[in-house]
């Protein structure tokens, strides 16, 4: 065991990479839940995003096209959730589970010929001067572009929800869909947009795992990240900046346990590997006392009778 081999600068830098898929998926789901919809299919949309992004970037050689394809893939799968919950008015919990089960199978089917293939490299952004600053440079300014997209998206979602009219309408729909309907807002239409946005974000998060974090394709490679993202939204009390904080916290735990495994700590590998899931449970327990910030219409089906 040699803890001295763990380089703190690299640790923090890789923490940000590990946190990005979580952040992307959680921000998307946050918007969905703010609109009053509980989509438990995040894991399914992520894995479909992971394989669509992977396949397209291998075929075209362009990681950017891959990420676009991943967003489209996630959104297309979420369209199935739209059909079930907004058109057929099915139970949201069951529909979300269906989405995940279907997504896992579908991605395995699509990914058969991509096992063991290496995706094209996206490269890192190198801004002269600031990325050469010692310590801060490698931590903050030497990453792939999508990581910054994640942070930009968090900012955009925060500003939209807080300051714009669109954000206000979205929150109104999530808090009280009957009142929003009475005011003349198209509840279903707004929810559909939110679900599609959430699907696209989850797709991006999935592709980040298969194209940058790992980078290769294996069946079921999201390994519960989508579910942790769902927990993260609760952790964040539906606030974007807290989601960012939470994502970095979970990213930190993941990276730390991987580093400890590599350093050969006396704790068995299996116990280290289960730690992110156990910590998720602990965090949920600590935070579940306060439910006041949850959108009031979360998970309820809306059907306009007039």
């Amino acid at each position, binding site marked *: 065991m040699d803890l001295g081999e763990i380089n703190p600068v690299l640790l923090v830098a890789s923490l940000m990479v590990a946190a990005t898929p979580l952040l992307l998926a959680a921000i998307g789901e946050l918007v969905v839940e703010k609109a009053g919809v509980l989509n*438990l299919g995040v894991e399914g949309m992520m894995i479909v995003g992971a394989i669509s992004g992977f396949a397209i970037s291998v075929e075209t050689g362009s990681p950017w096209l891959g990420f676009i394809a991943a967003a489209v893939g996630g959104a297309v799968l979420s369209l*199935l959730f739209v*059909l*079930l919950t907004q058109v*057929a*008015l*099915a*139970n949201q*919990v*069951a*529909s979300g*589970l*269906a989405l995940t*089960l*279907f*997504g*896992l*199978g*579908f991605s*395995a*089917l699509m990914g*058969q010929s991509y096992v063991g293939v290496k995706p094209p490299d996206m490269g890192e952004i190198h801004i002269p001067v600031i990325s050469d600053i010692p310590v801060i440079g490698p931590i903050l300014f030497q990453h792939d572009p999508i990581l910054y997209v994640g942070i930009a998206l968090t900012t955009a979602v925060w500003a939209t929800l807080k300051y714009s009219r669109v954000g206000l309408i979205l929150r109104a729909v999530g808090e009280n869909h009957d009142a929003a309907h009475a005011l003349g807002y198209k509840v279903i239409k707004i929810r559909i947009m939110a679900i599609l946005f959430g699907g696209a974000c989850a797709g991006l998060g999935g592709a980040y795992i298969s194209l940058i974090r790992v980078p290769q394709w294996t*069946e079921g490679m999201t*390994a*519960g990240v989508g*579910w*942790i993202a*769902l*927990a993260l939204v*609760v952790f964040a009390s539906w606030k974007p900046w807290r989601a960012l904080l939470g994502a970095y916290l979970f990213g930190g735990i993941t990276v730390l346990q991987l580093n400890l495994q590599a350093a050969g700590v006396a704790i*068995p590998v*299996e*116990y280290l*590997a*289960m730690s992110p*899931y*156990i910590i*998720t*449970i602990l965090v*949920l*327990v600590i935070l*579940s*006392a306060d*439910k006041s910030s949850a959108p009031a219409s979360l998970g309820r089906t809306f*059907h306009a*009778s*007039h």
Partner: protein
Amino acid sequence: MIVLEKRPQPSKAWSYATPLVAVLATMVFGGVLFAILGKNPVEAIGTIFWEPLFGEFSFYYRPQLLVKGAPLVLIAIGLSLGFRAGIWNIGAEGQYIMGAIFGAGAGLAFYPLDAWYIFPIMVIAGAFGGWLWAMIPAILKVRFGTNEILVSLMLVYVAEQMLASVSLGLLKNPEGFGFPGSRNLQSYESAHNAELIAGSGMHWGVVAALIAVIFAYVLLNRHMLGFHIRLTGEAPRAAKFAGVNPARLILFCLGLSGALAGLAGMFEVSGPSGVVSIDFNVGYGFTAIIVAFLGRLHPVGILLAGFLMALTYIGGEIAQSQLGLPAAAIQVFQGMLLFFLLAFDLLTNYRIRAARSEVA
């Protein structure tokens, strides 16, 4: 313009018909999927649904239906009780693993003793393992209001790591030449969940599944607790006034579904599988969710749905070896089934009407 009109009462006829319609729609769209994969759709569907029952080698496949169906039915019965009351245990896969670990562990602790009481102890230990694992989300839900969906699911990943840990350590076969995995319980007679009638596929897990179906039916139709479960699901406000204790219901539903999933794992590890190994679990805990919904959360329905799902597993394996159909295609097929079921359920609760569009 088409509008949906909520039915005052869910339609009885449609509630029986939707699973059948969903199966038909899955066959059609599954056929399209198989055609895209370059297989003859009619042949593929035929192989999946016909071969195991009436094909040339059906004498081999028919017993397999019981072997595959029993764990699905056992788990789904437990899940359905909770689902009816809005208590979502989706971590049955983890409880299944823990049941197997506890059950096999109890049996292996006696090795090589030969006694009649070993198997019953394993049954109890298996149920206890699953129950214990389900009690974690149950107690957290009751005590802290923690979301049981996320906790029970997180525990699946924890259980998978536990499984890896014991098959490489605690339960590893000391005579296994260093390979991971436990002793084979099939060759340890006192712990072996053998076929009750040779060649029939009928083992104690099948018996347990049938008992669970009858038990759940009686509970839901003839017992106060079953009435409370139904009431909580269908009219939560009325349940509150009727004095239903939600905490008790959560502990009961999660505990029972955990125990049944644990039993399923224990019967599997001591019978058809025989060995605690890293890849012991094959997703029965998740497929059972589809079984529960396909069976309309009704015990008899679940029995039929479990049979159908077992058929797709075995038929899928045959199609895999005979037609080269990828294993994942069957997974997609099963996922589709749940989709269509949820979608067609619209017809149970709503009436579709053509209406003149008017300005409100």
